[in-house]
């Protein structure tokens, strides 16, 4: 147990906010969102398909409602953000990419990449499926 009379080392309250911090917390937030909403959504989809056409139709109605679409589009962005920032982490694990400018550049690139990939996927879906 932590002794509350001892101070914690300062972090969020003292450092200037930067892209690397944003990407770090986004990695955690998108990971949690994918675990909960993504995990339940994927399992619901599979269980509905295994339960027959009526259950599957019910799932698809929820998925196509506006709130369902917000969740699905949000999860697609969360997936790309978590993917790109996860690949960045695997690279950082090798000891590369800690120089200030490089680190900042690739932190920003994960966010640019996830926005671009999400847009590309949904543009493809709406152009191919109407």
């Amino acid at each position, binding site marked *: 147990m932590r002794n509350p009379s001892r101070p914690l080392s300062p972090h969020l309250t003292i450092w200037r906010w930067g892209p690397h911090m944003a990407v770090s917390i986004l990695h955690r937030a998108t990971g949690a969102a994918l675990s909960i909403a993504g995990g339940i959504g994927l399992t619901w989809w599979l269980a509905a398909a295994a339960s027959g056409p009526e259950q*599957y139709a019910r799932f698809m109605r929820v998925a196509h409602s506006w709130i369902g679409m917000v969740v699905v589009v949000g999860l697609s962005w969360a997936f790309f953000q978590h993917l790109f920032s996860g690949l960045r982490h*695997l690279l950082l694990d090798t000891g590369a990419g800690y120089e200030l400018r490089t680190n900042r550049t690739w932190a920003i690139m994960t966010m640019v990449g996830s926005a671009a990939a999400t847009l590309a996927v949904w543009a493809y879906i709406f152009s191919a499926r109407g």
Partner: protein
Amino acid sequence: MGNGTGIGRVRGLGSAKSGTHHWWMQRVTAAGNVILVLWFVFSLLSLPALDYETVIKWLSSPLVAVPMVLLVANVFYHFRLGLQVVIEDYQHDETRIGLMILLNFYAVGLAALAIFSILKIAFRGAAG
């Protein structure tokens, strides 16, 4: 260092010799996820539609059902490891034990339901 009993060794300190296992499995499952989830996303995008018949027919193929089972196992293992760290970072009292058990129930329960569903569709076959 303690000598003899297990609790003596724990109190005397020293590592449990498994400190890097969690970290390493997080990376291994991450690499697996890159392959499996990208395959899943591109497969869904290449299906003509996501209606019942198309999805059942797609999931009935062994070359889809097996990667889907691997995907569920790998993804759920990965997020169980990840959410464990989130709990450890924010819960400093006894509630973390309860949350950790809940996390295990959630990950294993959901994975079992997902894998059973895939297998049920796959074993029934496209005709059924």
